[in-house]
């Protein structure tokens, strides 16, 4: 810690806590002090020991003090003190033109409500710092686009300029174009707000914090609290957090990982990694991802830390989790953790295996609640469909990335409109999907995309809807009314294909079932071989029913 900025002595009541502050009680019980988001960040940092990008929380009491008597005495000193600690942890200085530390400022009331200011990212950028960011990232387009986003957010949410005036009206991401747009933005904000965007990083942070505090009393927020009968005197917390970047050279990158395979539930890590890139590129599915072993081979220390964090998470949530992470110059940072979405087969296997898992110790009762009868039926159907041996006439087209399990056949449609208006089973084949494809995706029996990875839009939606999907089938090209394979095979709209969302395989024709139906015995044998966990659940279920019956008697 630096000696230059001592802890403020004269303002003992000013509650500003770093995420790793040793609170006397578990942080999750401090929502009334730190707000929802602040308690969550502190919980992840202290109780779970996860490498969350560091930061600090202005407690609810600071908001109350602000509304009582304006910007509190000593708050600037407290901010400088915490900022110095943050710089120390990150090894970068706020406002350093050579290698600037950037911050995100977010609101965090105990209960989320409309009308509150949400987020300002990239605080700390100005005309000098943007050049430094371009230099250390080796990516001027990224640096200037970050600057553009900062100006848009700051102009709209902090300085109150109508956001429609600040939108970039085209998708041209050429460097010169973005630079020109940044200039236009600065002029427009100055003209409409009556003053320019501050260039001093500390002033930027101070104004963003003020905007959050002010938004607590916005008419919308007040109206909401009145309608909901929420008390007026809680206030909002403000969270200030360091931003991390995965595009700072060969020992940086970004990725996503599931603690177990979300397709079949086997307890092996499942995910992908994109070296030298920021998170959005993974989600957009525009870049070519590497297997997780790449991280193990190239940044072994970050890999070891990742394994430890994932073990903690499963133990804490007692469930399969998925994690978005960034590696910045060899250091691992977790950005987002959630309980992971999974297919029906995976849900069954996870539930049963977690009963036997000594770190999770699910009860049989909990396993049955998680593996609902609907899921069990679905899993059974998937196992039976997947077992149909493909006959020789089924020409395999390609193998993509299976991201949502289930084997399904249907006629090829190449647009969402076609999918939504077609009769019968269709497979929607697209380069990628976006929210606009919702109607087509809802109507399709399966989805096949030629780009994208595990967390692409198509993959996440398909898993959520339990819709079979194969993404990233790179060998396929969608051209007009046809799909061409690397081998020159042409598939036309209306042709029947089959996709297997577990294995990623794609065939011509209907390869979903064997010619002869299975006898009950063969079916039981097949389930026993492929998904024995289903039989285990059924035996628990019958035990539960018997016990309940006994109790009623």
């Amino acid at each position, binding site marked *: 810690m630096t000696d230059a900025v001592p802890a403020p002595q004269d303002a003992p009541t000013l509650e500003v806590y770093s995420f790793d502050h040793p609170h006397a009680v578990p942080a999750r019980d401090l929502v009334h002090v730190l707000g929802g988001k602040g308690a969550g960040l502190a919980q992840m940092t202290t109780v779970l020991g996860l490498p969350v990008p560091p930061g600090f929380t202005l407690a609810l009491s600071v908001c109350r003090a602000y509304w009582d008597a304006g910007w509190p005495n000593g708050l600037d000193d407290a901010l400088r003190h915490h900022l110095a600690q943050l710089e120390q942890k990150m090894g970068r200085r706020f406002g350093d033109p050579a290698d600037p530390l950037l911050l995100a400022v977010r609101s965090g009331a105990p209960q989320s409500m409309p009308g509150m200011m*949400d987020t300002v990212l990239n605080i700390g950028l100005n005309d000098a710092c943007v050049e430094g960011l371009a230099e250390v990232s080796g990516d001027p387009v990224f640096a200037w686009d970050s600057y553009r*986003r900062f100006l848009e957010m700051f102009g709209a949410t902090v300085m109150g300029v109508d956001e429609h005036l600040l939108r970039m009206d085209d998708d041209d991401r050429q460097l010169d174009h973005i630079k020109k747009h940044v200039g236009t933005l600065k002029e427009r904000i100055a003209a409409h707000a009556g003053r320019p965007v501050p260039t001093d990083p500390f002033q930027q942070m101070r104004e963003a914090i003020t905007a959050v505090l002010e938004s607590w009393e916005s008419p919308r927020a007040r109206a909401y609290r009145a309608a909901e009968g929420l008390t007026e005197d809680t206030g909002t917390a403000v969270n200030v957090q360091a931003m991390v970047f995965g595009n700072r050279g060969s020992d940086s990158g970004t990725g996503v990982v599931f603690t177990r395979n979300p397709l079949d539930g086997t307890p092996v890590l499942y995910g992908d990694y994109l070296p030298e890139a920021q998170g959005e590129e993974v989600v957009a599915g525009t870049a070519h991802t590497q297997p997780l072993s790449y991280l193990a081979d190239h940044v072994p220390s970050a890999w070891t830390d990742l394994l430890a964090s994932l073990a903690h998470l499963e133990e804490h949530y007692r469930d399969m989790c998925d994690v978005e992470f960034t590696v910045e110059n060899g250091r691992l940072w977790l950005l987002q953790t959630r309980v992971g979405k999974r297919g029906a087969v995976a849900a069954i296997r996870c539930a049963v295996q977690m009963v036997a898992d000594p770190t999770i110790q699910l009860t049989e009762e909990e396993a049955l609640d998680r593996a609902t009868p609907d899921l069990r039926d679905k899993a059974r159907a998937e196992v039976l469909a997947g077992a149909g041996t493909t006959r020789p006439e089924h020409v395999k087209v390609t193998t993509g990335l299976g991201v949502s399990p289930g084997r399904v056949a249907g006629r090829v449609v190449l647009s969402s409109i076609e999918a939504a208006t077609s009769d019968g089973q269709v497979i929607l084949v697209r380069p990628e999907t976006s*929210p606009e494809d919702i109607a087509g995706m809802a109507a399709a029996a399966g989805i096949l995309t030629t780009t994208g990875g595990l967390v692409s839009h198509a993959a996440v939606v398909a*898993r959520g*809807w339990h819709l079979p999907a194969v993404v990233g089938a790179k060998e396929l090209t969608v051209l007009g009314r046809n799909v061409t394979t690397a081998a020159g095979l042409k598939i036309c709209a209306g042709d029947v294909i089959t996709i297997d969302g577990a294995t990623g395989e794609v065939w011509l024709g209907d390869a979903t079932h064997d010619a002869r139906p299975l006898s009950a015995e063969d079916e039981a044998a097949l389930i026993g071989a492929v998904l024995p966990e289903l039989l285990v659940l059924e035996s628990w279920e019958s035990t539960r029913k018997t016990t309940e019956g006994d109790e009623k008697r």
Partner: protein
Amino acid sequence: MKIVVDRTLCGALGMCEELAPEYFEVKDDGVMAVLKDDVSPEDLDRIHDAVARCPRQALDVR
């Protein structure tokens, strides 16, 4: 009826925005914002649809 978002689940995928753009918007920073959370009776069917269609089951209306 009010819209409730579970922020630990929301992935800002934008499906809700597509179904009810006057209620939901995915902002430039990748955070989904609820533009108004009070559901008018005539919109209730669409909001129920958005809740049911959320791939991460992050939405509720109650």
